[in-house]
């Protein structure tokens, strides 16, 4: 991936992620999150992970965000009115986030292995889906089945939760 494209999509992802936190209106937050996920999918393409990029767009930017927007509109949540800020909590939360980034910056300065460029791949156009599928069904078959059970449990859980009265 050319560095210009990387900087463009990285900036897009981070700026719209900030917009998710900064927006008062939940619908605007959700739409910013969609743009952030699309930027992230572009970064995945830059890392030659085409399958993951497509899944990211389909599952996250598509299904998950539609679910979020659906719930926001169903509950008819309007923009938050200003409340009295709990200043120590705000300062604490912001401080921890800033401390995390600073710490990461210093760790990355010392991380010499990460300062070399990405090695070139053996072939230029790899059939990504075949390799992922091979790994998924051959090496990780049991976890794959377990994920199926997990989704079944989640489906049943959602139905039970959305019943009007629990017996």
């Amino acid at each position: 991936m050319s560095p210009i494209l990387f900087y463009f999509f990285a900036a897009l992802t981070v700026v719209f992620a900030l917009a998710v936190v900064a927006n008062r209106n939940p619908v605007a937050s959700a739409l910013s999150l969609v743009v952030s996920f699309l930027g992230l999918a572009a970064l995945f393409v830059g890392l030659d992970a085409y399958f993951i990029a497509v899944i990211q767009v389909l599952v996250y930017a598509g299904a998950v965000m539609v679910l979020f927007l659906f719930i926001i509109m169903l509950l008819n949540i309007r923009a938050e009115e200003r409340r009295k800020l709990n200043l120590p909590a705000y300062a604490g939360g912001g401080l921890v986030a800033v401390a995390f980034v600073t710490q990461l910056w210093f760790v990355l300065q010392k991380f010499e292995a990460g300062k070399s460029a990405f090695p070139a791949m053996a072939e230029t156009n790899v059939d990504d889906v075949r390799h992922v599928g091979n790994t998924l069904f051959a090496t990780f078959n049991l976890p794959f089945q377990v994920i199926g059970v997990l989704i079944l449990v989640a489906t049943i859980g959602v139905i039970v939760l959305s019943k009007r009265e629990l017996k």
Partner: protein
Amino acid sequence: MTLTLNHYLLVSGLLFAIGFAGVMLRRNIIIIFMCLELMLNAANLSLVAFSRFNLVNGLPNYNAQVLVFFIITVAAAEVAVGLAIIVALYRARQTTHVEDINSLKF
């Protein structure tokens, strides 16, 4: 100037920090939930970057990409259950503001 692993790790860390700040600072439970998704995606980005960086026989390490696939699947299930809980909560309390939900507070 070439792209290095550190560039991707820094973007991933920034996304994680933004998501974390959102969870700490926002008071709307749906926004908090979105910020959780942001943090999960930050982890995915660093996994994919490491997978591309550590080539196995000239190909990316696909174990990491399968792990990302699992994370995305679990996150999708988590969103469905979490939003169902939020709807049930809204039905009981008519609010999504976390400071109004304090019956477990000591």
